């Protein structure tokens, strides 16, 4: 017998799969990036359903940032006038844009309004489940997996230096720009 949690999982899994496929089949790079964002949200949803709140939060924050960077890269690297045009025309998309702007605005206003109560209220005493999971994660990450964690630092350095190196290669057809 399927329970609610199962349905949630299958829904999220389908969402991740479909949007993942859409990332690579979408013709328009902007759509591709948006589908990628949806994939990330789906994965975050799966983490939430596993009670891994911290990982879900990190997933959203980090990958939202990554998708933003992707957007910048896409706009920088491609000549997208046509695609942007196609993307931002029509009544439906105009309505969607207005609606999403409204939702974001509502969220911000709501958060500010609601947080006034919490900020001035005394802090809650009990540590909830979320904090426990985060603490356990930190403990594992910085004791058992410390070696892997440190090596990933090296990996990131390699990526940074490598990207700069590749972009600075001069010679051949690039030589004329010197």
């Amino acid at each position, binding site marked *: 017998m399927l329970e609610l949690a199962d349905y949630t999982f299958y829904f999220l899994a389908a969402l991740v799969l479909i949007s993942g496929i859409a990332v690579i089949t979408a013709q328009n790079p902007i759509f591709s990036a948006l589908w990628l964002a949806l994939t990330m949200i789906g994965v975050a949803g799966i983490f939430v359903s596993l009670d891994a709140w911290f990982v879900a939060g990190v997933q959203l924050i980090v990958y939202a940032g990554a998708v933003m960077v992707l957007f910048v890269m896409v706009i920088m690297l491609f000549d997208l006038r046509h695609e942007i045009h196609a993307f931002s025309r029509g009544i439906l998309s105009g309505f969607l844009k207005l609606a999403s702007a409204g939702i974001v605005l509502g969220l911000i206003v709501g958060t500010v309004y609601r947080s006034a109560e919490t900020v001035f209220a005394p802090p809650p005493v009990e540590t909830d489940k979320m904090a426990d999971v985060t603490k356990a994660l930190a403990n594992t990450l910085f004791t*058992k997996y410390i*070696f*892997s964690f440190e090596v990933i630092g090296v*990996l990131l350095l*390699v990526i940074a230096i490598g990207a700069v*190196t590749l972009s600075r290669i001069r*010679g051949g057809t690039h030589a004329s720009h010197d």
Partner: protein
Amino acid sequence: MNMQLLQDVVLVSPLIALFAMSLLPVMMKVFQGNREPNPYVTLFIGFIGLSLATGLTAALSGADKTAFSGAIVFDGITAWMSYLVYLITAVALMLSFDHVATRGRQFAEFVFLMLSSVLGMIILIMSNDLIVTFIGIETMSLCLYILCAMSKEDVLSKEAAFKYFILGSFASAIFLYGIAFIYGTVGSTIFPDILESVGTLISTNTLFVVGLAMVTLGFAFKVSVFPLHAWTPDVYHGAPTPVTAFMATAVKASTFVAFLRLFESEGYGDAVQFQNVLQWLAVLTMLIGNVAAVMQDNFKRMLAYSSIAHSGYIMVGLIAAGFGNNFDAGATSVIFYLFSYALMTLGTFAVVAMFEKAENSTVGMNELKGMANRYPLLSLSLTVLLLSLAGIPPTLGFFGKFYLFSAAIEQDMYWLVLWGVINSVISVYYYLRPIVMMYMSDDVPVEIVGTNGMTRLTVIFTAALIVVLGLMSSPVLKAVQRSVTNLF
């Protein structure tokens, strides 16, 4: 706890030394206002890093223990393979210093990337945990993707880098997916835990088998074994030759060690189907590599296919180690073969590097015509190297193959050895062709131009080493054997 951590850090001190030294040239470049430091200084720092790491490894050898909650292991295999990778890197750095595509304005970054790649390889060799293995593979590969692209503006090099990057990412994804399955079924990513439960899980749990197959495919991509070998010729051809030499030897050596560690279990004994699949992969790898190599006119491409074929031979030893009842004998033969393969491949690619005058020139077989008249010592060295690749006694290559195949025969894998021998016979044809071109033609040979003192030294050094080690192969084998079986 703190003492424990200190011991663990001491055990990875070769890595730390290597990393610190690899940063030095780049830092110098930054502090000198982005001016490229003197390439001799960069090269010298690279050598210091490598010798420091070698020294520390030697000082620690015999430790034979695990560190960081069992994530890495420092045993005889670690020490021997680390020496090999450091040696390969030193030679590859010398080749890069001479070669037209890699010297120049970004030598500091080049050395940094190459040493970081070595860092990944040593992590891979030390790894006792699938997660660490994955991170090692990624560190190694990411550096290689960039190194491939660093031939200044060669179209082939860019194409090679891109192909390697996209296909490599795909293989990494498969590998990671396999780790997830194995973790899901075993409940741990540490090798001893996995190897303990192999025996029961491999015949009962489909998910575990799927995971194992995916991890195997991930390794197969890195060492270019049959279904995932197709990238090899293009990437090896397109990359700058010193980088190709480095990839063909060091990557294979380190990845095969991690692969080997996954087979250190009695549990595979009953997994007949898995063994059959791997055997066919080995046979097809040998066949495809050798048959395609026969048809090549480009020297570098021929060597690329030949390196695929050699992966097939090494798979024979791997299967003998994993599915037989004597892991140590199989592992010894694999490590010995990796040593001999690395030496002869490095030397041969060094000859290719010498013939490349411009960045996008390629060496056809015809360019070797009449070389013996003009460069007798070089021709003799190349002859030794090629004969060793073909496995003709008394060279090191012959003994490598001999030990590999006898390890398989010990496990009654006659069928596999038969294929290995047939393939060796095929390979003789294309290894002899350059030799015939060099000695049996009166054409005026191509002139070798440019600075290549160190490359020339490499060719002669590797050829000499192959003959010397070939003549005294049995003490070397015994030394390897002792370290594998941990009888210090």
